[in-house]
C-alpha cells in the first residue's frame, strides 16, 4: 500500500457515483416498499380477523398483541409444516365468503401462523429457501420479483461490474498506462478497486437497513426487528455479491476486454441460480443427480431468512462466500502482477 491508494479510491468513487447512487436508492426504496407491503398485508389480516370475530361475537376476546410480539422478537420461529397463510388477494375473497351466515368459523391465529405471515411480509424482501411460493398469482410473483429478485441482483450487478472494470475495462479504455506509469504498484491498484467495491457493498447494507427502519416510521407493522437482526440477511445478500466480485476480478486480471469477464461471470451466475432452483424444486429426492448443481452453486450458501431466524448459519455462509472472494482477489493479484500490459492499454 502506498500514497496512491486514496486518490485511486477517490477516482473510482467518482467514476461509479451514478451506478452506486442509483443502486443504493433502489435498495432503499425496495426495502421501504417491503415495509409498506407488510403494513398492507397485516392491515388486511387484522381487518379480516376483526370481521370474523365480530360475526362470531368474540370481538372482546381478541388476544393481546403486544405480549405475542415480545415473545416473537426474542426467538422467532417459522415452522415449515404449518399451513401457509393465504395471499392477500385470496384473503379478500375469503372475507366475502365469510360474510354469509353459513361460513365456518375461522380459528384464532396461532403464534406459528402469525410468524409465518410475518415471514411472508416484513422479511420477504430478503428471500431464501423459506420463501412462501405457494401462490402463483401474478401479484405475488411481481412482489417477489420486486422485493427479492432485485435486491439480490443489485449486489450481483455491482460485483460483476466492478470486477470486470478493475483490469480488463481499464486496459480496453486505454487508461491503464497513464496510471501504472506513475509510482503505483499493481497490488495497490487492485486493492483500490477491492476497497471501493467493498465500500459500495457496505453502503448497500446500510441502505437496506435504513429503508426498513425509516419505512417503519411511516407505516405501522406488527413487529420491529432490531438493526442487528436486519443486518444478518443484508450481510448475506452482500456477501454473495462479494463472492461474485472475487470471481469476476480474477477473470478480469487475465483479460484484455471487458465483455468477456462480464459475460462469463453473468453466465456463471445465471447457471448457478438455475442449478440452485432446479435442485430445490419441491418433491425432489435428496440423492437425485440434479441436486449436485445446487450444491455447487454459490446460492446454496445464501440463506438470509435462515440467518435472520436462527442466526447461527450466518457465520458459516458469510465465511464460505468471503473465502470465494478472498481466493478471487489473491488469484487476481498474482496474475496481474505477472502479466504484460499491452501497448496503448
Amino acid at each position, binding site marked *: 500500500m502506498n500514497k496512491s491508494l486514496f486518490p485511486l479510491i477517490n477516482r473510482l468513487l467518482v467514476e461509479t457515483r451514478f451506478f452506486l447512487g442509483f443502486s443504493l436508492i433502489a435498495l432503499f426504496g425496495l426495502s421501504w416498499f417491503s415495509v409498506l407491503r407488510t403494513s398492507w398485508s397485516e392491515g388486511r389480516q387484522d381487518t379480516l380477523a376483526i370481521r370474523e370475530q365480530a360475526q362470531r361475537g368474540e370481538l372482546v376476546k381478541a388476544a393481546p398483541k403486544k405480549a405475542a410480539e415480545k415473545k416473537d422478537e426474542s426467538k422467532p420461529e417459522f415452522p415449515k409444516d404449518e399451513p401457509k397463510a393465504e395471499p392477500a388477494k385470496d384473503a379478500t375473497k375469503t372475507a366475502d365468503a365469510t360474510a354469509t351466515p353459513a361460513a365456518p368459523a375461522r380459528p384464532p391465529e396461532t403464534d406459528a401462523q402469525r410468524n409465518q405471515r410475518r415471514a411472508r411480509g416484513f422479511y420477504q424482501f430478503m428471500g431464501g429457501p423459506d420463501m412462501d411460493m405457494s401462490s402463483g398469482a401474478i401479484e405475488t410473483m411481481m412482489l417477489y420479483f420486486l422485493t427479492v429478485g432485485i435486491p439480490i441482483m443489485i449486489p450481483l450487478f455491482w460485483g460483476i461490474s466492478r470486477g470486470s472494470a478493475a483490469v480488463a475495462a481499464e486496459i480496453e479504455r486505454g487508461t491503464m498506462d497513464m496510471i501504472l*506509469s506513475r509510482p503505483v504498484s499493481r497490488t495497490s491498484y487492485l486493492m483500490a478497486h477491492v476497497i471501493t467495491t467493498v465500500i459500495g457493498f457496505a453502503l448497500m447494507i446500510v441502505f437496506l437497513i435504513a429503508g426498513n427502519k425509516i419505512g417503519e416510521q411511516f407505516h405501522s407493522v406488527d413487529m420491529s426487528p432490531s438493526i442487528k437482526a436486519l443486518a444478518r440477511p443484508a450481510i448475506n445478500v452482500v456477501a454473495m455479491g462479494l463472492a461474485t466480485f472475487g470471481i469476476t476480478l480474477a477473470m478480469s486480471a487475465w483479460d484484455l476486454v471487458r465483455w468477456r469477464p462480464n459475460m462469463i461471470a453473468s453466465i456463471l451466475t445465471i447457471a448457478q441460480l438455475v442449478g440452485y432452483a432446479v435442485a430445490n424444486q419441491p418433491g425432489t429426492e435428496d440423492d437425485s443427480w440434479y441436486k449436485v448443481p445446487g450444491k455447487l452453486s454459490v446460492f446454496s450458501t445464501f440463506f438470509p431468512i435462515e440467518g435472520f431466524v436462527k442466526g447461527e448459519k450466518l457465520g458459516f455462509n458469510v465465511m464460505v462466500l468471503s473465502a470465494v472472494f478472498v481466493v478471487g482477489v489473491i488469484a487476481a493479484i498474482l496474475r496481474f502482477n505477472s502479466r504484460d500490459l499491452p501497448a*496503448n492499454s
Partner: protein
Amino acid sequence: METIITTFGLTKQYGDFYALRNLSLEVHRGEVFGLLGPNGSGKTTTIRTILGLIKASSGSASVAGLDCWHDSLMVRERVSYLPGELRMFGYLSGYKHLKFLCDLRGGFGYERAVHIAEKIMELDLKRKVRQYSTGMKQKLALAQAFSDPVEILILDEPTSALDPSAREIVLDLVLNAKSQGQTVIFSGHVLSEVERISDRVAIMRRGQLMHVEDMHTRRCARMVLARFENDAPQDFPDDLGLIVRRRDGRELLFEHQGEIKSLLDWFSRQPISEIAIGTEDLRGLYDRFHSPDVRDEDIVAVVENAKP
C-alpha cells in the same frame, strides 16, 4: 559519462515474433536520447520494458541500477512517461485530471503542471477532458510530464498531434528539462525535431538496434559530392577519414570528419570537375536503414558496449 538506463540483450518475444531482439544500449545521465524507427520497430516495447509494464523474455533493463521489472515501483518514481496514444478520464476537468495524476506521485508538481498547462500551453483547465481536442489532450499530458519531479522523462511521440507553435514549445521544454539535469528519451518520427534536440540518436529496425549516432559529432561532419574528370578513384589516403556513401561512375559521395584543410589539399591534386560540400541531415542516416531499397541482409545490427 554516467549511465542511467542500461539494457543488455533485451529480448521480447511473442510466439515466433520478436518485438525486441538482443537490444543493448546505454542512456547517459542528463542527455537527450532520440529513439528513431518506423512503426513496429520496437521503440514503444523498449520504453514499456523500461517502465516495467511488460516483462522481457530474456536480457535485462535497469534504471539507476534498479531492475525494471522487479524494482518497477522504484523505477517509476524516477521516471515520467508520456504515452504515444493518449487516453484520459473524460469525466474529469483539466484541473482534476492533473490533480489526480499528481496525487499518484504524492501531490508533487501540481502547481507547476497547472502553470505549464494554463500559461504555456494556454489550456482551459475548467473544461472536461472529454471536450478537449486530441492536441489539447496531448498538451495536458505534456504539462503533466514536464512538471513531474523526476530524473528521467520518457516522451513517446510527444508532438504527433500538436500544431507548429506547440511543437516549438515542447522542444523548448525538452531543452529546459535537459538544462535542469533531467534525462530525456525522445521517441518520434519527425527527424528534424529529434535531430535538433538530441545528444545521441538510436535507430531501430524490426526490434533490433541498428545504429547509435552521436549528434554532436554528426553536426561536425560534412558530406562531399565530387565529380571526377575520369572514373572516381578506388582508394583514398587513410588519414583523410573519408567514408564513401555512394559511388556512381565518375561521381562520388562521401562523408568527412576532421580537418578540412587536409581534404582540400588532397582535392587540389585530383582531377575534379565539380565539387559540393554540405552537411547531411538525419534523414540520410535514417534512410541507410529504412529506405525502401534496404534489405535485411544488407545491414547488421549493432551491439553497444553495454555491460550486464
